[in-house]
C-alpha cells in the first residue's frame, strides 16, 4: 500500500513537471515565433544620438585575437558614445556550445561572430536578422570580398564577413628542391599535381613512388596531405565538374559521373600512398600537423594555415589550386561573419549594424585585424595593399589568395551542413580505404545525404 502511494506521488510529480516543461517550451516558442523569425530591419529608424544603447557582442577567440578585438571595440565606442558594448568571448568549441543553448533560452548575444560554415544553420532556422536592406543602403558591394558568400538561394544577405578564408595550394620549397622538381605552377591540372607528388612521396627506405620497389605501407613523406571537406575533397570534386548539392542546396547530386572521376583520382592517390588516407592521418597528433612538420610536400590549405607554417619556420609558398580535366578551377571559401540575432530589438539591431559597418568600412580596423594574420581582409582596398600583400615574409605569393576569388565558392553550406558532411565523410572513408568501390560509395552517400536534407527541408 505504502509502496503504491509512493509510486503515485512520484507519477504525480512527474506529470506536474512534464506539464510545467511543456508550458515552458510553449512559452519559448511564443518568443521564437514565425519560422522566418525575422523582423525586417528598418533602415530609416535611426535611434536618436543621445539615447544610450547597450549591445552584447559574442565572438570566439584565442588570447592574441581577444586583445585586438577589445582594442577595436574601444575604438568603436569612442566613435559611438551612445553605444556601449558588452562582450562574451570563449575559445571556438565552447563558444558554439554555449551559443546554441543561449539561443534556445532566448538569451543570444545581439551580434555575434559566426563561423562562415554555420551562418546558414542559424539563418534558415530563423535566428538571424536579414541584413539585405542595410547592405544595399550602406555598403558599396564592389568594395568588398565575399559579401555574396552569405547570400542564400533567394538573394537575402545574412551577415557581413569579418575575415575570409580561401583555399590555395601550399608547397614545401625545401622538399621540392631536394627532389629536384620545379615548383607548382598556376597551369597545373590535378594530374600534373599527382605526377609531381609521385616523385615527392618517399618510403622508409628512401625510395619514391615512381620506384618499382616502393613500399606504399611505410611512407615517411607524402606528396599531398589531404583531409576534410575544406582542405581536401571538395575542391577536387568541384573542379572536375561535380559537387554535393544542387543550386537550391536541398537536393543531393553526389552520384554523378564527374564526382566518380574525381573520387577515382583521389582513391588512386591514396592507394598508392601518395596522398594521406584517413588512417595515415590518425598517426599524426593532428591532421593539420602533417604539412607544417614537413611530412608532406603539398597541402590544400586555407589562409589561416599560414600561421602554423610560419611558426614551424617552414620554407614554403602558395599557388593557385590546380584545374580539373576541362580547365575548371575551384577555391573553397569560408566567410566568417558578423550576424545579428533575430531577437535583437530595433535599437540594438541598429547599434549592432553600426558595429558591423565600422568593422567592414574603416581602413584602420581592417588593417589592425589583417596584422594578426588570421584571415584575408574583407575590404578590397586593404587586401590589395602592402598591409596584406607583404606582411610577414612567407608566403611570398600572397596574391594567389586574392586571385583565387575569381573561382571561389562556398562549401554548399545549408542548415544541415555539418550533418551531411559527416555522412559524406563516413562513406568516402570506405572508398578512401578501399573497402567499397567508388561507384557504390557515391550511390550510398547520395541516399544518406538526401535523407539528411529531407529530414530538414521536407
Amino acid at each position, binding site marked *: 500500500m505504502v509502496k503504491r502511494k509512493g509510486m503515485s506521488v512520484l507519477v504525480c510529480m512527474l506529470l506536474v513537471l512534464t506539464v510545467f*516543461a511543456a508550458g515552458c517550451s510553449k512559452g519559448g516558442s511564443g518568443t*521564437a515565433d514565425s519560422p522566418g523569425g525575422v523582423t525586417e530591419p528598418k533602415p530609416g529608424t535611426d535611434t536618436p544620438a543621445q539615447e544610450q544603447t547597450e549591445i552584447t557582442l559574442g565572438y570566439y577567440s584565442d588570447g592574441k585575437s581577444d586583445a585586438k578585438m577589445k582594442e577595436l571595440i574601444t575604438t568603436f565606442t569612442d566613435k559611438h558614445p551612445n553605444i556601449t558594448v558588452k562582450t562574451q568571448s570563449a575559445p571556438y568549441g565552447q563558444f558554439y556550445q554555449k551559443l*546554441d543553448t543561449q*539561443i534556445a533560452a532566448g538569451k543570444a548575444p545581439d551580434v555575434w561572430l559566426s563561423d562562415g560554415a554555420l551562418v546558414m544553420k542559424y539563418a534558415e532556422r*530563423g*535566428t538571424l536578422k536579414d541584413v539585405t536592406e542595410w547592405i544595399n543602403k550602406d555598403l558599396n558591394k564592389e568594395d568588398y570580398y565575399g559579401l555574396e558568400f552569405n547570400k542564400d538561394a533567394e538573394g537575402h544577405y545574412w551577415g557581413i564577413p569579418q575575415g575570409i578564408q580561401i583555399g590555395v595550394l601550399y608547397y614545401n620549397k625545401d622538399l621540392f628542391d631536394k627532389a629536384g622538381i620545379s615548383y607548382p605552377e598556376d597551369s597545373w591540372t590535378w594530374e600534373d599535381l599527382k605526377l609531381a607528388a609521385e616523385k615527392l612521396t618517399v618510403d622508409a627506405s628512401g625510395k619514391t613512388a615512381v620506384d618499382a620497389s616502393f613500399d606504399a605501407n611505410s611512407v615517411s613523406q607524402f606528396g599531398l596531405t589531404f583531409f576534410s571537406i575544406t582542405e581536401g575533397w571538395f575542391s577536387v570534386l568541384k573542379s572536375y565538374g561535380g559537387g554535393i548539392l544542387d543550386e537550391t542546396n536541398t537536393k543531393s547530386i553526389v552520384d554523378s559521373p564527374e564526382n566518380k572521376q574525381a573520387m577515382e583520382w583521389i582513391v588512386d592517390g591514396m592507394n598508392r600512398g601518395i596522398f594521406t588516407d584517413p588512417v595515415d592521418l*590518425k598517426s599524426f597528433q593532428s591532421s593539420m600537423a602533417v604539412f607544417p612538420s614537413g611530412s608532406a610536400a603539398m597541402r590544400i590549405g586555407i589562409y589561416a594555415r599560414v600561421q602554423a607554417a610560419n611558426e614551424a619556420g617552414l620554407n614554403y609558398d602558395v599557388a593557385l589550386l590546380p584545374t580539373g580535366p576541362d580547365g575548371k578551377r575551384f577555391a573553397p571559401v569560408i566567410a566568417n561573419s558578423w550576424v545579428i540575432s533575430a531577437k535583437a530589438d530595433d535599437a540594438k539591431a541598429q547599434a549592432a549594424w553600426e558595429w558591423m559597418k565600422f568593422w567592414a568600412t574603416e581602413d584602420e580596423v581592417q588593417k589592425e585585424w589583417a596584422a594578426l594574420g588570421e584571415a584575408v581582409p574583407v575590404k578590397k582596398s586593404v587586401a590589395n595593399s602592402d598591409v596584406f600583400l607583404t606582411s610577414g615574409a612567407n608566403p611570398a605569393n600572397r596574391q594567389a589568395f586574392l586571385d583565387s576569388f575569381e573561382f571561389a565558392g562556398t562549401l554548399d553550406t545549408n542548415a544541415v551542413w555539418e550533418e551531411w558532411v559527416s555522412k559524406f565523410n563516413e562513406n568516402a572513408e*570506405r572508398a578512401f580505404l578501399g573497402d567499397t568501390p567508388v561507384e557504390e560509395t557515391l550511390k550510398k552517400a547520395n541516399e544518406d545525404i538526401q535523407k539528411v536534407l529531407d529530414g530538414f527541408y521536407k
Partner: protein
Amino acid sequence: MIPSETPPEVQKKKRRFQAAGRSRLLRSEGRWGLLMVSPYLIHFLVFVAGPLAVSLYFSFTKYDMLTPPQWIGLGNYEQLFQEPLFWKSLWNTLYFAILFVPIQTVLALILAVMLNQKLKGLKLFRMAHFIPVISSWTVILYVADSIFNPRFGIANSLLIKWGLDPQQWLNSEKWVIPLLVIIAVWKGIGYIMILFLAGLQSVPGELYQAAEIDGAGAFHKFRAITVPLISPTTFLVIILSTISTFQAFEQVYVMTGAGDISSAGGPRNASLVLMLYLYREGFSFMHMGYASAIAWVLFMILFSLTLIQMKMQNRWVHYN
C-alpha cells in the same frame, strides 16, 4: 492484540487518537524534517527531476534547440530502432562491457589480494596503481599513443623486431574496442582495487586462522572465505563498472578522435559507443529530441541490467 476481541467503537476511537498524535508529530517534526532536507529536495527537483521530465518530453518531439519543439509522438523511438548506427553503437557498448567488467573485476581483486599483504613499500605500490585513476584522459591518451601509435609507437617497433606484422591498433576495427578496454582497465583498476582492499580488510582474521588449523591451503582459503565474504563489494563493483561502461564517453572521444567529434568513434564507427552517438546526434547535428530518446533507451537498458543484477544477487552475494 487480537482485533475481534475489542469492540469496534473502542478500536475506532483508539485509531483516531493515534492518528491525531501522528499528525501533531508530523506537523512539528515533519516540518523540521522537510526544512532540513529542502536543500537536497530543491536541488533534486531543479537539477534532476526537472531536466529528466524535460528530456522525456523532448524525446517525443523534433527539437533542434533553435526552433520550437514539434510533437511527433513515438517518432524518435521508431526511427531509433530502425537506425543501423544505433544498433551498432549498442553492440559496441555491450562488447565493451562484456570485456571490461569481468577483466577489471578479476584483475582488481587479484591486485587487491596481493597488495593486502604486509610487505615493505606497500604504500608505494598502492599509490602507483592509483596514479592513472586521477590522471585525465588526455594524459592517458599521450601515454597510450606512445605505445600504440602505428608509426612511432613501441608496440609496433616490438612487433617488427620479432618479425611480426605491425598493427593499426586504434585505427583498426578489430583492435579498437579491445584496446580501449585494456586502456580503461589500466586507468580504472586502481579505484576498484581500493574498494576491494576495504572489503578485504573487513574480513576477520580469525576465519583464516581457523581454516589454517583445518589445513586449508592459500587457494582454498581464498575461494572459501575471501570470495564469499567480500561478495557485497564484488556486487557493488560489478554494478558500478557496468554503469560506467554504458556511460563511457570521454575516453572514446579522446582516444579515437583526439578530441575531434567528427572523427571520434572510428574507425568506420567501430568504436561508436552509445554516449558518443547521443552526443553526436544532439550536439553536432542538433537532433535534441532524438538524442533524448537515445538517453531514455539507454536509461531503460541500464535500469533493467541493474534490476537483473539485483535479482541475481541472492544467489551469490552473502551479507554476513
